[in-house]
């Protein structure tokens, strides 16, 4: 609704969209041209998903769509109808940070923090598939996410940290 005032008065068609975001069901009427990133940020107020380059390069807007990382600036909100989305807000469970959040804090895997939501969600998907990745595999998996602070060393360390934490948790 936030951008309604600046839109011209042309007739518009909207579509009903029902999505589950971070486990919570949402329904909205949206214009087909509404991008998923704007749906999350403006319609649902989930501003943890960042809009960076807006041209499918930087990966700051990465969210998990049915568990798979996608660049939400390059997906239409209507395409998410009936599907599950996880944003950075969905990582923390109650008062407990997700292991990837703990790891990014412990290893100083962020400087300005702008790329962090995308980095963490891509990492979560990686660890789901590959619980003990090598440096090379981490760098490969994160190669669609850009950190303009160039803090890659610590990001890679953080992913290793989370992998180890999850392995301990699974073993205990």
């Amino acid at each position: 609704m936030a951008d309604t005032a600046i839109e011209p008065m042309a007739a518009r068609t909207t579509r009903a969209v029902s999505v589950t975001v971070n486990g919570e069901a949402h329904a909205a009427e949206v214009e087909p041209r509404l991008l998923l990133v704007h749906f999350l940020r403006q319609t649902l107020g989930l501003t943890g998903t960042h809009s960076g380059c807006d041209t499918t390069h930087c990966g700051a807007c990465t969210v998990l769509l049915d568990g798979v990382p996608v660049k939400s600036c390059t997906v239409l909100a209507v395409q998410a109808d009936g599907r599950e989305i996880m944003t950075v807000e969905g990582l923390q469970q109650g008062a407990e940070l997700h292991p990837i959040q703990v790891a990014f804090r412990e290893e100083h895997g962020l400087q300005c923090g702008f790329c962090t939501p995308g980095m963490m969600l891509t990492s979560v998907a990686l660890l789901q598939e590959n619980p003990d990745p090598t440096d090379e595999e981490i760098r490969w998996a994160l190669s669609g996410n850009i950190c303009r602070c160039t803090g890659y060393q610590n990001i890679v360390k953080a992913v290793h940290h989370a992998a180890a934490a999850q392995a301990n948790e699974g073993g205990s």
Partner: protein
Amino acid sequence: MYPARFEYFAPTTLEEACELLDRFDGEAKVLAGGQSLIPLMKLRFAAPQALVDLNTVAGLDTLAEENGGLHIGALVRHKTCERSELLGARFGTLGAAAPQISDPIVRNLGTVCGSLAHADPQGDWGSVMLAVGADLEARSSAGTRTIPIEELFQGPFTTSLQENEVITGLRVRDPGPKAAGTYLKLERKVGDYATVGAAIHVSFDNGTVGRAGIALTGVGPANLKATAAEDALAGRELDDDAIVEAARLAAEAAEPQDDVRGSAEYKRSVARVFVERGLRAAAEGRSDG
């Protein structure tokens, strides 16, 4: 950035999709992975009146061996190709290319057939398909037809696909029992276009080259099939002399231009080196296989 306004349709059958394409008479675009189309629409280089989303049509995501070749459905993602064991050995060119398409997140959504329909002259799959040989299946309300990959690209972002046609899949031709290939790509960073790419495919026939496929990316107004180099290899043993000559011919066929990624001379040189390397890899594939 927002795309211009459009109507969105999510048909559940191909009949319905084709009807929609007819109804909008050239003003609708087909949406598959959207990783090229949506950016184009955001930049307003494309402003279709309607999008016809194929993702709600069942049965288009098959990647399977078929009559010695491969069937790749319209919704097969780059990631599926990257992970598929089918794309090794005889289909090594495809297997080598898949993980080099754009970046890992884009590969989760982008499709092989969508890339071909988009016909970016810098696209990697175009060269791969020109090298290995493939036929697209195009469907409209009038019926289906086959478009050989050699007849698809008409120029930058221009194909022989009609406005009311949708690609439903493609068939990679049977490369024969003994074949090998690879895709080499020089890129400044992950997700950038190729400075130069080279798709190499060789089908062997009794120890000699039965058919060679060589195609180049980033060095012409479209993906470029190096036919003189291919012809020079046919029937020959894939030895040093043959490889060096083919690489020279392929580099001569390249039409590179100076740009931010490098000088024309540099790109031509990379093309020669890549074709040489690719053919050597294929030759080793033969001894392994």
